[in-house]
């Protein structure tokens, strides 16, 4: 199975080469490490997914000695590895550029949010197609705006407050609960994707 992750890395080699300098540019300009981390991680994870989305790639992978379970699992484990890679780069980047040590809470926040997004994106993409993700995101965003404007009025502020609050929290128990929630979601999503993929016809 780790051969499959290695394959993703070989396929994404050029993407890494482009993204890495861009990541450092963002950090130099002083953009929020959290958002840069999330966007870059998701871009890499979905890039790896899109590479294998063509039916010819599915034919290849399924004809090689891999099970469908392994093919899906490689994406989930790969997502984890790629996120850690990005977080590590951000840590190193901040250390070199700003001579500061990134707060571990920020890093954890990136990982959790990427895991939550991946949990939603991957089963959706296995079921439909990753190209519909954009449409789905736009629809969700429109919904969010509608709710923001008509129901809560100031959802944006509340969200930033919530994020600030989460990051300011000291309570270890609370972090455990969040971690538990994120990991369960990830695991469920993983199982769901396997189920979807096992029934797929190429």
């Amino acid at each position: 199975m780790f051969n499959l992750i290695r394959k993703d890395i070989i396929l994404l080699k050029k993407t890494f080469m482009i993204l890495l300098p861009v990541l450092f540019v963002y950090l130099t300009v002083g953009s929020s490490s959290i958002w840069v981390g999330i966007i870059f991680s998701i871009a890499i994870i979905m890039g790896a997914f899109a590479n294998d989305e063509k039916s010819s790639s599915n034919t290849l992978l399924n004809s090689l000695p891999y099970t469908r379970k392994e093919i899906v699992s490689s994406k989930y484990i790969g997502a984890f590895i790629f996120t850690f890679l990005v977080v590590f780069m951000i840590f190193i980047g901040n250390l070199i550029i700003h001579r500061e040590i990134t707060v571990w809470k920020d890093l954890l926040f990136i990982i959790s949010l990427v895991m939550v997004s991946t949990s939603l994106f991957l089963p959706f993409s296995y079921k439909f197609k990753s190209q519909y993700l954009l449409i789905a995101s736009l629809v969700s965003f429109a919904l969010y705006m509608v709710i923001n404007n008509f129901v809560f009025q100031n959802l944006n502020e509340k969200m930033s407050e919530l994020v600030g609050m989460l990051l300011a929290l000291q309570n270890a128990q609370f972090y455990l609960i969040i971690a538990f929630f994120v990991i369960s979601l990830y695991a469920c999503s993983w199982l769901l994707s396997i189920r979807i993929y096992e029934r797929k016809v190429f």
Partner: protein
Amino acid sequence: MENVIELQHVQKSFEGFQLKDLSLTIKKGFVTGFIGGNGVGKSTTIKLIMNLLQPDSGTISIFGLNYKEHEKEIKQRIGFVFDENIFYENLTLAEMKKIIKPSYKNWDDNLFDHYVKSFELPLTKKIKSFSKGMMMKASLTIALSHHAELIIMDEPTSGLDPIFRRELLDILHNLMQDGEKTIFFSTHITTDLDRIADYITFIHQGEHMFTKEFYKIEEEYAIVKGGIELLDRDTEKEFIAMRKSNHGFEALTANKARIENIFGEMVLIERPTLEDIMFYTKKGAEQYV
């Protein structure tokens, strides 16, 4: 004799198409050609054999093993070639090898290098830029580099020039020398089979018509030509299908000896080509619908 592939009562339906109660066996150590028109279920059958599709009912076993418990073991021992490019277009053949090599236990770099050299394949050019023939050679190189016992090919000769088609058949012929390998390949260029196939499996409209030894087909089947006056309700039944014209009839029989008995010297009996058999079988199937 050992069976490498066994399909028993396999059913698979899609919208507008169905494989009906397909049972077939492919014998170890031989080349089996898989023929049938377009859209009769050749690719579906191959996908079922490769476990790219699962049957609605029935059982499939490869090397006597089932896919449910032995998927990886089975696939370790299969080499595959498809009619479309399934490699990543933006990679070179060397990179592609880097990806595929670790998935096989028996990968053999010497073999790979040998085929790359003899096919004159470029290792550092993107696969995107390969011609149809080069693509096929590349697929074949990968398929042959891990000592696969069973080679499955879906239309490997389609779109190839006649020279390379012959080369390909020679390579396959050489592979068969040790008697350990089995080749199963679909084609609609039936002349390819004359050179190499030991067995012919013929399917039509999702149904298995026959799997027979090539030479037996030539012994059993015959094209019969004669005058219209020879035909009546009884004699017409002796044929799978026929074509009538003002000058006479031409028909296919699956029982050459019987026809010789009935008509004797009054008809002309010729050796049928696989194309004749395919053509008349299709015609015959349509008549009875």
